């Protein structure tokens, strides 16, 4: 997922080493500092759970693929292969790479499910989407 926590930290580093232009004024500088503090607070959350969230989402997508094997032939057997995969590299970048591949296949699967009028599987995919979105939720600091 981009921006990832590394991108956020890069931005914080750039911000603290790049003073605002003279014309910006004190109010803008204060507002910008508030924004940076908020981003730092969100980055604390993300650093703690980004790996767990990616692992959980990848597992949930694979579990859905395992329930969707009726569509596997039309996807060249890729659903079954993806459903059998397990994580072997737990670096965030590797988990995100696997997530991107799974999400691309999920998009393809959902299009086929829609075109086939498979309401049951469509409903399960929509439930998965809701779970994926909840799993990536960022809580505003203090909110």
């Amino acid at each position, binding site marked *: 997922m981009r921006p990832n926590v590394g991108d956020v930290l890069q931005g914080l580093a750039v*911000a603290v080493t790049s003073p605002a232009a003279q014309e910006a004024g004190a109010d803008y500088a204060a507002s910008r500092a508030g924004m940076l503090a908020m981003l730092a607070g969100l980055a604390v959350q993300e650093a703690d759970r980004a790996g767990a969230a990616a692992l959980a989402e990848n597992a949930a997508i694979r579990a859905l693929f395992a329930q969707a094997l009726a569509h596997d032939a039309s996807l060249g057997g890729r659903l079954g292969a993806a459903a059998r995969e397990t994580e072997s590299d737990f670096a965030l970048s590797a988990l995100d790479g696997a997530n991107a591949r799974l999400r691309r296949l999920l*998009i393809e699967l959902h299009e086929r499910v829609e075109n086939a009028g498979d309401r049951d599987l469509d409903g399960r995919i929509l439930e998965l989407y*809701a779970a994926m*979105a909840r799993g990536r939720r960022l809580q505003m600091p203090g909110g």
Partner: protein
Amino acid sequence: MSLADALGAYLTRVWGEEVRIADMARISGGASRETYRFDAIAGERRRPLILRRDPPGSLIETDRRLEFAAIASFHGRGVAAPEPLILEEQGAELERPFFVMTRIDGGRTGGIFTRDPYGEHAAALGRDFFGTLGRIAAADPAGLPIAKVADAPAPGEAWRRELDYWAGVIDADELHPQPIVRAAIRRLRRSPPPPAARIGVVHGDYRSGNFLHDGKGKVVAVLDWEMAHLGDPLEDLAWTMDPLWSHPDSATISGMLPRAEAIAVWERASGLAAAPEALAWWALFASVKGQAIWISSAKEYIDSGWREPILCFSGWYTARRHDEIIADQLARFAL
């Protein structure tokens, strides 16, 4: 040369008299352009003004000529729009395109992170806020400045033009596969809304944070017209009511009015009906449009070397919030 000096030199040349710039300060907001407040002093006259200058990178590519024309279309016409004064598309002394408009002082903003941002005046402000949006919808674009720079879609094509545009933004800027918003785009194409009852001016970003109020229940300035266009007025109503712009725990739209009352105020002011099915389509579209903007923000943030914190916030926190909002709506668009 400082920005203030460059602006002073420009105004001196254009107005034909010596102009000095005082109290220049950047304002947070209007993320597609840099926004500055300043006073222009010429002789005994001191004018409170706003400068909107194109940035090196922005949330979304927008046409400054269109924004200028949209503001001009409503200034002095029953909508609290500032007076646009100068459009400089070549950049001249400021090196990047910009425009200048009058400044409306004394207004307050309301944020989306406060449960009760307007206190005892919330309902009165809501009636003025949704009434103002209704008056924008009621305006006949023919003869307005915006009609000279914006194309009017056929009533049956307004939805398609907007959806094609924002789906194209996602195609161009997506950095990580986005199954939720892509499912929403497909659902929208499968179930188009009815043709627009009429083609009107769509502000494009009418919401919490993009207006000023007087603290007593009245809108004193409608801001950020950068995404204005001609289209189905329901697009604006749906965007304004997107859950993103309300505190998650609020029972009212943007901390002002219950949903049914907000719609009723808008219907009375616009003379249009907000049919539930049509509004549901535009509501899902609004969330798709929002997600497209946040996807662009993320790309711009990374491509520009992580420079603008607001782009990071939009492309990260806001994008994830909108994924939840879209997923919630998709449940109502079953096959």
